[in-house]
Structure formats: structure tokens, C-alpha cells
């Protein structure tokens, strides 16, 4: 039976083969690297994806999946049964989160994971109770560095929006 490390190895191969320029794990799976376990059913891969004018071109990813024999289910590709969703990173915050991702180890597989401060901002701005809980978990785990978070918010002009949406202390 395949393991989660096999999924991460497959993502590394996508990058090595040039299917993805660069990527980082975000969403609920990323939070698991820093905080306690919460339910998630897919892996969100934020990626720098080739763009033709205004359209994000995901065809290379789907072609790669077909060549590998991975099932495509709506917006997800099932890599060793694990639903993986590829999201084109927006310029600014998400792109920077990819560029500054931490390369963590999962059972011998290198995994680029968004840093907790970026995850917190992306969760809160996206909204929703589940993401708010994940943000709280990151803070409770002591994973979020306050000065790093403040610098990110200031750099992207998001301090007021963060205060409005999060409200709580950054600790």
C-alpha cells in the first residue's frame, strides 16, 4: 500500500519534470505540520503555474496525471487515493508564501510547507469557521511568531483587514 510519503514524492517529481514551477502545501494539511490534528480530506497545493494571458493553464497538470494513471475527480487529482487540489497562487501574499515555504521532512520526502504566519493570514482572509479554528490552533501551538506575522501584514497592506477579520491578539 502506498504511503503519504509517496504522494509527496510524486509532487517533487512534478516539479523536477517542470510541470510545476514552484509550490507549497497550504490548507488544512499544512496546519498539521505545526498544530494538533484536525480533519481534512484533501491536500491543497498552491503552485506557480504557467499562465496564458489571464487564464491559468492547468492542462500540464492534468496531462501529467493521465500519463501517471491517476484518477481525476472534479477539481482534484487522486494521487495514491489522496485528493490533491492544485491552486494557482495569486501574486503577492500567496506567491511569497510559496517562495518562503519551509522544506520539512515527511518520512524521507521533502515537503515545502507554507510557514505558519502565512497560513494564519491566508486562513483568516479566506474566512469560515473551520479556517478560524485552524488559525487558533496555530496560535495555541505557539507556532506563530508575532513579529513575523506583523511584518507580513505590513508588507502586504493587510494589517487593518487582519484586525477587522481576526480581532484577537496576535499571540
Amino acid at each position, binding site marked *: *500500500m502506498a504511503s*503519504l510519503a509517496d504522494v509527496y514524492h510524486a509532487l517533487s517529481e512534478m516539479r523536477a519534470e517542470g510541470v510545476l514551477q514552484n509550490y507549497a502545501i497550504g490548507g488544512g494539511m499544512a496546519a498539521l505540520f505545526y498544530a494538533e490534528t484536525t480533519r481534512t*480530506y484533501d491536500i491543497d497545493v498552491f503552485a506557480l503555474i504557467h499562465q496564458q494571458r489571464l487564464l491559468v493553464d492547468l492542462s500540464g497538470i492534468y496531462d501529467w496525471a493521465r500519463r501517471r494513471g491517476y484518477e481525476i475527480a472534479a477539481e*482534484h487529482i487522486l494521487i495514491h*487515493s489522496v485528493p490533491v*487540489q492544485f491552486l494557482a497562487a495569486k501574486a503577492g501574499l500567496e506567491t511569497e508564501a510559496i517562495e518562503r515555504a519551509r522544506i520539512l521532512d515527511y518520512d524521507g520526502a521533502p515537503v515545502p510547507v507554507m510557514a505558519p504566519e502565512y497560513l494564519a493570514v491566508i486562513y483568516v482572509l479566506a474566512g469560515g469557521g473551520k479556517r478560524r479554528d485552524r488559525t487558533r490552533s496555530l496560535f495555541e501551538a505557539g507556532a506563530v511568531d508575532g513579529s513575523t506575522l506583523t511584518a507580513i501584514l505590513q508588507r502586504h497592506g493587510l494589517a487593518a483587514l487582519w484586525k477587522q477579520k481576526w480581532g484577537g491578539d496576535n499571540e
Partner: protein
Amino acid sequence: MNEAAKESPPRASIEKSKVEWHRQQAQLPIKEKIRILLELQRQDLELLRRHRALKDYERAWDIEP
């Protein structure tokens, strides 16, 4: 104060224990967290299915941690 209140631990102590438990859970090795996640998926999906239609991607992962 009734007898039950006298015997139960102070609320602050319970809160402190909960915070400590959550912190310990956060510090588990990532592979152990994934083992817990796979177990949660198996338990949770049946309950979810009783309440609403599952989304395409809501399925238990058929992998080892």
C-alpha cells in the same frame, strides 16, 4: 457550596490541563498526526454521510501514514 462542587477540580485547573493536552497533541511527530487523521477520516465520514451528501473529495484515504 454543594458536595459535588467541593469535589470537582477547580475550573482553572481543568482549563490548564486542556491547554497542555492540546499543546502535547501539536507536538506529536507528523507521522503520528497523519495516523490520527486517517482514523478520524474513517470515523467521521459515516457521521457526515448521515447529515448531508458527501463532496467528491470527502473520502477516507487508502494509504498508510
